[in-house]
């Protein structure tokens, strides 16, 4: 059993009148258990600008469905106005501007929950990781 952790830290000396320092660490388990998550995929891709506009990044599959999957995406662009729109199916989650990252659970229960990305202003490179369970290799055809 693997031990994998995801640690978040948010800090600001001046967003509000009292400095903010928020930290949280989660250990990643298979759904409903204390068994550490054992499957991981990662990649680095350039999202082209133009047509087609939306690109599949992560395909929801039956194997992933209704599990404790998590994914991370970082936009590696450096120009402030470059951004990537991340959608789950037809629903826009939000915009990752240059240097932004996101981390969230992923239900992945249906094709309508594919994770898609679209680059705006310029082609952009993203890095991504998904922790998941239940996936088996398909027989070669």
């Amino acid at each position, binding site marked *: 059993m693997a031990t994998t952790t995801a640690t978040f830290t948010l800090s600001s000396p001046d967003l509000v009148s009292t400095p903010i320092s928020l930290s949280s660490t989660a250990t990643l388990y298979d759904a409903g258990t204390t068994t550490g998550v054992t499957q991981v995929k990662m990649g680095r891709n350039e999202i082209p600008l133009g047509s087609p506009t939306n690109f599949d990044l992560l395909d929801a599959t039956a194997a992933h469905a209704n599990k*404790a999957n998590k994914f991370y995406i970082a936009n590696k662009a450096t120009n402030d*106005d470059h951004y990537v729109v991340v959608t789950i199916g037809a629903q826009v989650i939000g915009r990752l501007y240059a240097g932004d990252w996101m981390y969230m659970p992923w239900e992945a229960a249906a094709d309508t929950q594919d994770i898609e990305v679209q680059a705006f202003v310029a082609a952009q490179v993203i890095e991504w990781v998904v922790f998941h369970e239940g996936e088996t290799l398909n027989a070669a055809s």
Partner: protein
Amino acid sequence: MATTTASITLSSSDIMDNSLSISNTATLTKAGTATGLPDTTSLRQKRIASNVKQNLLLVDETEATALKANKVYIKNTGTSTAKYGTVGITSGDNDVEIKLGRLYGGDWMFIPWNAVRGAKEVFELTASGSWATNNTAIFDGVTATVGSTQTAAGIATVIQATKYRNWVVTAHGSNAAISIFTAKYPGVQTNVAGDWAENASGALAVSVTTQGTDVQDDITVTMNDQTETVIEYMAIYE
């Protein structure tokens, strides 16, 4: 200008043969600029002892501007690895929920937030004819009653003085017979043909000038268990 940073470290010594360690720090800035995100809800808690969908973060509870660099943090502070909250975003008419994923006890998430809000419907109500004493106009579950014979402008004044549940009523700038109804919330819509019921010698005509929409990026959570669980959340926005 505020300086706020969000950092993540994904770490495992044994999920693969070699150690995995991915770290990233983002400085949270307004869309397309180097200016720090200025606004926050601060950290909030919601105690949930229900397995029915709960509103967590409503667009209308913040002043977040749509289509910007807004961010949201959510954590399930529970300790059970069997109990989880499914986080969703409402989408489109009828509050259809798109499920994002499950936060088990101890899990957290940090995402960009589109924060699109729906348009509030606006319609004009034009009164005409002469209205007799005790004539009524029923709308939104509220009855406006004419106390004495009124002209079209007079009934408009009566209607503008009436308090409606889901609408704010104002006078038209140049036509005294017209009242302007603005929905209090996105998604409140009028049925032009059938929402008004008059028992009157005069008449009312409805004309929608702004079509309301229910597209609203509200964030919801649905627990799988009724044991009280505390969900922490925070938006940082512009």
